[in-house]
């Protein structure tokens, strides 16, 4: 049996085993596991074919990256739709840091300025920026709902609206960076990060894989911090109202102006 066929069959067997186990344990997860696996298979097959096309027609690379940014922004934006302009906030917080860092890495020659290098690099950085935006935004929305008394107490004590939100945004930003900081700290010890695994399986030397993985992880630290900061800043602007007031957010789904 050829290696590609074996890869597909063994991974399908694993997900069937997971679904069977979930069914036996009555976790109500079997359908979700199978649907997620099916979706991933279709999406990766389509993306694989598309990327093969993009590698042949470099002009398509820009469009491909734009679609990645848009998809990431829709996903992250849905988490902060309690505030007006959520999608715009997400696009700004994801695109600026991720594309900026990709541009720098390619411009200084850290990676070759080819679609083959640009797309994976942009993809990882956009994914990281999306995670930071989602985590910061979701925490901030939760705190805007739960912390309404604290915010009003600070306003009543004479704080400007922006200042009254600072404790909330600091908590949200700090919380958003925890997963990446933990991942970076444990890289190579607890987990072998995806880039490293992919490169080694693809035939790169472990030294090369480690160097590229480190570049990606360290770049992600700045990208995610910038994304979290931008999310907090743009959400602060969306949450403040004229007259040093703060928008009352009553549920993660929506807001109202008092």
């Amino acid at each position, binding site marked *: 049996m050829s290696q590609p066929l074996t890869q597909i069959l063994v991974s399908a067997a694993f997900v069937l085993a997971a679904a069977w186990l979930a069914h036996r344990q009555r976790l109500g997860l079997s359908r979700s596991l199978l649907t997620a696996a099916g979706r991933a298979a279709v999406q990766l097959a389509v993306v694989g074919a598309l990327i093969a096309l993009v590698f042949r027609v470099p002009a398509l690379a820009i469009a491909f990256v734009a679609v990645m940014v848009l998809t990431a922004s829709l996903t992250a934006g849905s988490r902060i739709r309690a505030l007006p302009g959520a999608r715009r906030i997400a696009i700004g917080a994801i695109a600026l840091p991720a594309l900026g860092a990709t541009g720098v890495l390619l411009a200084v020659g850290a990676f070759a300025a080819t679609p083959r290098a640009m797309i994976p690099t942009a993809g990882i950085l956009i994914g990281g920026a999306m995670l930071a935006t989602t985590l910061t935004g979701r925490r901030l929305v939760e705190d805007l709902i739960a912390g309404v*008394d*604290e915010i*009003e*107490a*600070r*306003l*009543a*004590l*004479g*704080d*400007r609206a922006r200042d009254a939100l600072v*404790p909330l945004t600091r908590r949200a930003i700090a919380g958003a960076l925890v997963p990446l900081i933990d991942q970076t700290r444990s890289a190579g010890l607890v987990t072998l990060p995806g880039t490293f695994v992919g490169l080694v399986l693809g035939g790169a030397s472990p030294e090369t894989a480690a160097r590229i993985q480190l570049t990606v992880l360290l770049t992600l630290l700045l990208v995610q911090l910038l994304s979290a900061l931008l999310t907090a800043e743009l959400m602060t602007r969306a949450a403040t109202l004229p*007259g*040093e*007031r703060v928008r009352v957010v009553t549920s993660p789904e929506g807001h*109202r102006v*008092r």
Partner: protein
Amino acid sequence: MTGPRSDVNGLAVRGLSVAHGERTVLRDVSFDVPKGTVTALVGPSGAGKSTLLRCLNRLLVPQAGTILLDGEDTAALEPCTLRRRVGLVGQTPVMLPGSVRENLAYGLDTATVTEPRLAQALADAGLDRTFLDRPSGELSGGERARVALARALTREPELLLLDEPTAALDAAASEHIGATLRALARAGLGVMVATHDLPFAATVAEHVLMLRDGTAVVGAPAELLAASPSIPGPQA
């Protein structure tokens, strides 16, 4: 065009209307809160007492009406300055992180925050100075309510708005707060206190403003409270 005028030394509210979406909460409400007096704000739950207090320091912007402070339209005042002049102690006594001292001095110029000033504010709220270095997270509900009052007093406001200040207090502590508010009014402060505790309102206030179905009736405590022997309190 000129808006309503007022010679009242304190707050003068004229034609105030507030709606939350479709629902009218306050309709054409007018009253005064002169400095040197205590006004009780009473009415059933949901009558708009908290909404009204929040309008007075512009945490909430009314759909219609004018609120004058010493004859000056509060809409024209810088909001943060207004909120320092018109203090508000909300229904939930929120403690900020840190000690009681840090809570009292929050946002104030450290040069003006002297130990005697903090101790006096605490004493006015019924707590002794040993509380200054207590972590705010360790206080009981009643102590929090009093620290929140002291924190508002540290700002030396001209008017003080209190939303259910005795809700977390026992009878003795409520009595102390009532005496404090009377003393502060005698010293020139204008006080408006929203409460469902009618005996407390009758003891502490010269004027009573009763909200019902969005409108307000102003009167002396005895006549208004006698006409309304019971008002349902806030939801537990």
